[in-house]
């Protein structure tokens, strides 16, 4: 296929093409060997072959998604509990004193492959990973960001007030459709 052929493809077709060429989909379908830690109907956990620290695990949905906002809430819930259990297994088996759960959405955030994953990374004292600086911020900027984000959250979740209600969160009508359109997602990967 020539690069110009891609121009005739729809965004959906490009993503389908990406899925076919996705190394992690091939690992999940056992076309490429891996060091599997856990697998169920929806989720797959393997060791990263180029770890940040020994025992670095990748928790992935079996279905091909590029970034978190595409994933339905139920699957996010399942992925998070699998990440917690993976973290627990890592803490117990490797004698480390901490873990970091890390998600990158988009190449600019450090995402290396267009298949969504949660990293569970064993941490050692002074490994210098994930240094987050504390910067001064001014009140005006914080207030501006707050109003933008809280308005968007209220629109997305239908929760405007701070009043607690008795509904079970599972039944809550949280917006389950993907919140980003496909054009925007492909932009994230250049």
């Amino acid at each position, binding site marked *: 296929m020539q690069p110009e052929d891609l121009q005739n493809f729809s965004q959906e077709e490009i993503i389908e093409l990406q899925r076919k060429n996705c190394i992690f989909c091939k690992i999940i379908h056992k076309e490429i060997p891996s060091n599997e830690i856990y697998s169920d109907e929806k989720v797959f956990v393997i060791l990263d072959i180029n770890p940040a620290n*020994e025992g670095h695990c990748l928790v992935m949905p079996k279905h091909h998604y590029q970034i978190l906002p595409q994933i339905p809430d139920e699957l996010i819930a*399942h992925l998070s509990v699998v990440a917690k259990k993976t973290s627990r297994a890592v803490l117990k088996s490797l004698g480390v*004193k901490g*873990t970091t759960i890390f998600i990158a*959405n988009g190449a600019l955030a450090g995402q290396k492959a267009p298949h969504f994953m949660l990293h569970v990374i064993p941490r050692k004292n002074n490994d210098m990973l994930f240094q987050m600086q504390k910067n001064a911020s001014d009140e005006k900027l914080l207030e501006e960001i707050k109003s933008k*984000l809280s308005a968007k959250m209220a629109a997305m979740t239908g929760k405007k007030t701070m009043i607690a209600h008795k509904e079970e*969160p599972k039944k809550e009508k949280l917006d389950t459709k993907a919140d980003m359109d496909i054009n925007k997602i492909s932009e994230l990967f250049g």
Partner: protein
Amino acid sequence: MTTCDICKILENKNEFKLIYEDELCFSILHESPAVDGHTLVIPKKHSPILEELDDKSIEHMFIIANKISSAIFDTLGAHGTNIILNNGLAAGQELPHVVLNVLPRKENDKLNLEWQAKKATEGELKTTQSMIKSYSEHIFSGKDSLPEVKIKHETINENKQEEDYMIKGLKRLP
């Protein structure tokens, strides 16, 4: 009266930049952000480490973090987001209460979260895999999270100490 600084934030939430709240979690802007728009998603239930937090709170925290992440994409012009949970003192956890960080990412934002990938040999990976699997199979087969894990008695005690260590360490934080 709570002694946990995060629980204190919840008690005085109106003094903070509250973004979202429901019955299980709340979200505020970090007042000393790593980047502008650095947001925290915090379970209301007090738990020093992730492993002690109930599954429902964890699920909900990640679902809300995803919504925050989408809101950041839509309203702050971010070209990426990171979601980070530092669990334990060795991971740089600063307060004895689980906190999830959501960070907007832009080009040249001076935030460096990349790591130096190490090369692991196939033999090393196999050893690590079997070490982790000796525990993970019990943990994943457990019907519920923590107490039902069926592993050898002596290792339970050992493990209890591990978790106690993590919690004690965090309790010593100011």
